[in-house]
């Protein structure tokens, strides 16, 4: 049973049937999947969902697939970690980390959007899938394409971290690195997508792809015991996930699965690529593109397609946003690792650093519930922290040498006298 009613332009409201199409013919606005919420509300209950397998497909009525999902059967349902040690460092009462650094199979939130996009591409009968990516999306498309037995072309900027490049290559896609930044890759891909009949997950499959991001929000609410948090901090690159998390909370409310006020949503960007935050702080609707210059490569998108909807979702929710410098981002990665044992990539360091800033500014109250969105894994971006972690102590395999090292490490504690 599907509750999808079609596609509608977010700008001008023009309607289209379900088909591979990413922009409105009338105004180039993005298209949004529409649903019959009233019909869904009559059948979808907390109990129905709770009885299903622990993957993002437990919310399938709220996702745009017509047939049995083909991929992503183990994607999603990542931990919502109660982060008491980090809460104590930040001086807040109730803090959670929604941890997509352990998403299956490629360790980022992209496994959500790609599960939906590739299931949809198979419904539309494509034999080749593709994407423009800063790394995580390419990893996920490559893995899911391998699993589904589809041909795969991925397009990335030529300056990505090794972990992100190999993390795609291992699955056997054709990888094309473009001399330039992500925005250059995107521009080329939009022309390629016009010419080749492929399922470009973030171009002609975009309306379906973006819906997958809602599952991050559904899970937060379900894992809190069908309760909405008061504040959610989300990183912003192209602007897909933040508006979809807001939509997720709204939808759960609309079909009666949660009650109470909707959360305030906050955007986190790297200071070296903060077109949305600049616009938010200026009080403007107009987003001026920037040339990215930050270690947070996964969120280095200077011309965010959905930036306008990030602004809208943040403002309508009563939230705010901030940017973090590269030094603050690295400190954020260390803080999360040391306080909670979670190793995130620079995008996650950005979100931690921005959360800290917003709490210090008094924008997020210290006595209310807060969720930090961790969307990617630090093992893919070792370069970002290599210079800031301690090197190992190298010794020979002799107890005496370790004893000497131990004495140095525990100084100035006086040495215990053996047999004394």
């Amino acid at each position, binding site marked *: 049973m599907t509750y999808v009613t079609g596609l509608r332009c977010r*700008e001008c409201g023009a309607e289209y049937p379900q088909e591979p199409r*990413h*922009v*409105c*013919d*009338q*105004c*180039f*606005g*993005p298209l949004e999947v529409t649903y019959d919420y009233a019909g869904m509300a009559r059948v979808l209950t907390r109990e129905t969902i709770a009885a299903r397998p622990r993957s993002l497909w437990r919310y399938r009525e709220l996702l745009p697939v017509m047939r049995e999902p083909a991929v992503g059967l183990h994607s999603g349902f990542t931990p919502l970690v109660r982060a008491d040690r980090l809460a104590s460092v930040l001086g807040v009462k109730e803090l959670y980390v929604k941890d997509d650094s352990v998403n299956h199979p490629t360790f980022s939130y*992209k496994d959500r*959007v790609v599960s939906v996009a590739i299931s949809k591409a198979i419904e539309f009968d494509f034999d080749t899938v593709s*994407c*423009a*990516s*800063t790394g*995580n*999306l390419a990893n996920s498309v490559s893995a899911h394409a391998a699993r589904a037995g589809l041909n795969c072309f991925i397009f990335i900027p030529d300056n990505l971290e090794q972990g992100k490049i190999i993390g795609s290559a291992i699955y056997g896609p054709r990888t094309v690195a473009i001399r330039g930044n*992500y*925005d*250059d890759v*995107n*521009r080329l*891909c*939009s*022309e390629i997508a*016009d010419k080749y009949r492929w399922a470009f997950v*973030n*171009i002609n499959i*975009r309306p379906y*792809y*973006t819906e997958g991001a809602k599952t991050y929000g559904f899970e937060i609410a379900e894992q809190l015991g069908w309760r909405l948090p008061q504040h959610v901090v989300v990183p912003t*690159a*192209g*602007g*897909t996930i933040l508006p979809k998390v807001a939509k997720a909370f709204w939808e759960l409310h609309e079909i009666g699965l949660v009650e109470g006020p909707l959360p305030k949503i906050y955007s986190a960007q790297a200071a070296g690529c903060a077109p949305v935050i600049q616009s938010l702080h200026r009080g403007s609707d107009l987003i*001026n*593109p920037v*040339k990215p210059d930050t270690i947070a490569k*996964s969120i280095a*998108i200077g*011309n*965010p*397609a*959905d930036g*306008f909807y990030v602004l809208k979702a943040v403002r309508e929710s009563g939230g705010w946003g901030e940017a973090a410098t590269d030094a603050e981002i690295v400190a954020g990665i260390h803080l999360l690792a040391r306080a909670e044992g979670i190793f995130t990539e620079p995008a996650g360091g950005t979100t931690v650093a921005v959360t800290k800033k917003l709490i210090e500014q008094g924008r997020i109250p210290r006595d209310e519930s807060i969720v930090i969105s961790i969307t990617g894994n630090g093992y893919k971006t070792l370069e970002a922290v290599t210079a800031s972690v301690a090197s190992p102590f190298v010794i020979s395999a002799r107890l005496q040498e370790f004893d000497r090292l131990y004495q140095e490490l525990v100084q100035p504690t006086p040495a215990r006298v053996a047999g004394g």
Partner: protein
Amino acid sequence: MAVHVRIPTPLRRFTGGAEEVGASGASVGTVVDDLERQFPGIKERLCDEKGEVRRFVNLYLNGDDIRFLKHLETQVKDGDELSIVPAIAGG
């Protein structure tokens, strides 16, 4: 100045299916006006009622986003390439 203009799929119904067309003008703005003269209705797809480029339309002159140049006032030269590209999602 005569420039080559790359037309994306959603606008090809205005250009009789052509992927690339020629247009002339001294600036990006006047090139867009010339497109409208040749292909009536196309400008409304690119620009809003105030004449500004729509939020989800990107214009690139020889690969550079015109918002890094002088927007519609950007001067063009003979043989330049203007690409019209819808905004796309990222990651």
